[in-house]
């Protein structure tokens, strides 16, 4: 129930994002979801791509600082209040959320949220126990 995310260090420099995404494109990897954390000094680009290992290798060989981070993806109904349910579950299980980002797809009526939590396995277990939909790598990319 774990999905691989690419975490990429982005210096605050003109053209850096273009350079990084071009390398990913040359590795024939398609970006499915993304977010960027920005500070005054640097950014951390987080990507879900369909070929994470190939993309990571291509970035590394171009001298880009990248790591593969395990995250979880949940599917929720696209209705008011739906997202608060898993958040309450995690809170009651004392699992901290480090960051998250959401997306929707053309193939499904649902909304999807990528979650980076302190303990992926514990979070996956408690969410599944409470009936929250979790996507695995295969399920995630099939939906795209």
């Amino acid at each position: 129930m774990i999905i691989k995310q690419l975490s990429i260090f982005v210096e605050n420099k003109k053209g850096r994002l273009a350079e990084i995404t071009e390398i990913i494109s040359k590795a024939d990897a398609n970006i499915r979801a993304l977010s960027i954390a920005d500070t005054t000094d640097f950014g951390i680009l987080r990507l879900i791509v369909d070929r994470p290992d190939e993309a990571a290798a291509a970035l590394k060989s171009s001298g880009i600082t990248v790591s593969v981070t395990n995250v979880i993806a949940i599917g929720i109904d696209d209705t008011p209040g739906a997202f608060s349910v898993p958040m309450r579950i995690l809170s009651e299980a004392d699992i901290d959320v480090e960051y998250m980002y959401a997306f929707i797809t053309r193939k499904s009526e649902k909304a999807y949220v990528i979650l980076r939590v302190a303990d992926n396995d514990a979070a996956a277990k408690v969410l599944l126990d409470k009936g929250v939909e979790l996507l695995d790598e295969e399920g995630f990319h099939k939906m795209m």
Partner: protein
Amino acid sequence: MSIFKPEIECASRDYLHALQSARLIKMVKNAYENVPFYRQKFDEIGLKPEDIHSIDDITKLPFTVKTDLRDNYPFGLFAVDKGDLVRIHASSGTTGKPTVVGYTKHDIDVWADGAARAICAAGGTKDDTIHVSYGYGLFTGGLGLHYGAEYMGATALPASSGNTKRQIQMLQDFGSDIICCTPSYAMFIGETVRDMGIDPKSLKVRAGIFGAEPWTDEMRKEIERLLDIKAYDIYGLSEIAGPGVSYDCECQNGMHVCEDYFYPEIIDPDTLEVLPDGEYGELVFTCIGKEALPLVRYRTRDICALTRETCPCGRTTVRMTKPKGRSDDMLIIRGVNVFPSQVEHVLLSLNMAPNYLILVDRKNNLDTMEVQVEMTPEMFSDTVKGMENEEKRIEAALQSTLNIFAKVRLMAPGTLPRSEGKAKRVIDNRVF
């Protein structure tokens, strides 16, 4: 304006020459007989103390450099037994080890005499309260002016640095007459006084003695405007004594050197030849009046020029210009000496690549230092918190070595200048 020691400060050049000659002969004997390092250096060039007949023979003597102090760390260059010391100070060295200096009772008096001359030259009298906002501790700034104030019978107020609002409250409540600190801190106090809505004219303080870091005439004018005082420059370095080696008089046209204690020369830093008055070169001091650490021709690395023309103030002692640069890579940041090599040592101790870039600037009148370092792949985290923790860890390691806060900025591996060759390691955007 009164002169603290007119018999010296206004002496004839002939008298000074005789006094310096007698003191140099005595000092060289002391160094040769009591410091094995100097005995060996003199023996190597076949020089005996008897070969020194007057101050004119000083050029026969070898130079001393900062690494000699480090190589003989901590007490190897002291000419007296530890029992005769009454004080030890230390400043940061080029590597992890500090430069250690020792003083006998006589040496403390020599230093206090120099600082007292500086206070007097800034218009201070025994009735004044001297507000000392230099840091107290191993740094010589605080205790130097403190002892100078007491030596001349004035009242020393050991405020030390920091807690600016309390400093200003003391200026108001205690009626300090003269304030001593780094020029950048004086600017900050001045700005804070204005921000607090206090009219500087309501403060009794009338003069300031500022040193320990380079500053411009523009800064001087700004400090004078902000605090409504007259600002005086003071020079010193711990290896020689501390603040009070030379000082401004009311004419502010060069700092008078206490040349009866600290004999200055200007040399070409490449050829090591002595340069005539008026020419810029590296300042060298010989401690002809001190017992514990009789440094011979110590190379300060400060670039300045000397003049022996009589000053309109009446003093005849040699004057030095404000140092206009360094012949090495030392930086002075908020009054603290910083060597780029110290940063390198810290990075290596953290198992990081010794690639870095130091950015120095002056923001809101305070020096800032940023160190850009290359992260290791293991240091990279997908969370901002993780990256900030890494930065804080390096900042803490730097602070404990440099004694000054430097902001750390993590850079991608391979993006900074390499350590080979003449990499540009420092960008100093301050204006002096």
